[in-house]
């Protein structure tokens, strides 16, 4: 898998993790288990900054724009469709033997896409 694509997926999962730990219902349950979501969030934000700065600036800026606009910037391709906007992807894109070997975006919504299978 393309290194930038890996980092974009990791950044997305890290953003989800931080988002979950600031969610008041999840925080309450984590505290019931004896965990400290506040401490975890502070550390995860530092890690996020490090990861963010390791990504090609072009992709990073686009990621941040897409996240702000849609709430998610990276989505899997499901049944040959972008799972963000459900647009059918062009044959040339999903039939390519080099899927995931370069950073691809949905031609309709612009989200970063990857193939999970």
């Amino acid at each position, binding site marked *: *898998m393309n290194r930038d694509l*890996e980092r974009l*997926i*990791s950044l*997305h*999962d*890290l953003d*989800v*993790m931080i*988002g*979950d730990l600031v*969610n008041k*219902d*999840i925080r309450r*349950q*984590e505290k*019931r*288990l*004896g*965990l*400290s*979501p506040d*401490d*975890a*969030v502070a*550390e*995860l934000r530092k*890690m996020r900054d490090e990861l963010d700065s390791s990504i090609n600036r072009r992709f990073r800026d686009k990621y941040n724009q897409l996240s702000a606009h849609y709430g*998610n910037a*990276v*989505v*899997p391709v*499901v049944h040959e469709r972008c799972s963000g906007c459900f647009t059918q992807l062009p044959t040339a894109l999903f039939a390519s033997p080099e899927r*995931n070997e370069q950073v691809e975006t949905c031609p309709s919504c612009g989200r970063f896409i990857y193939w*999970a*299978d």
Partner: protein
Amino acid sequence: MKKQCSHSNWSVSSADRRSAINELLAGAAVSDEARELLTIALETRELAEPTIVHPGIAMPHCRSILVDEISIIIARSENGIPWPKEKVNVIILFISPVKPSGPQQHMELIRHLARYLRDGGAEAVLNAETAAEAAAVLRFNICESEQNEQGS
């Protein structure tokens, strides 16, 4: 209602946290690439704060766009795994998909575990002799075809 446990491994051989997480994920229905990225995500959470929910029990967990259904894996290491300051014998690992509807499913699973680990549940899981016994304490069903109880 019982949850579906995707996999169990009652004889974890890894000697460190990261390897153990990776070993457990071998039972999840994901590609090798996804497994590596999921290991990184779970390890990142552990680096931020070890998810030790009871002495001897760790609960690595996250949501990820790399899975499309919940994966729950319960595992045991006889010798214990450094996590890294305390040794952990039982690992309850789960990954939930990222859905447009939000983290409700993930939160429900955390709530479920918090409920059944309390009031002696954690001790019962630690003392369980088989994965099925531990799963019963946690109100999980185990997919029999995926079960690995070697050495139990």
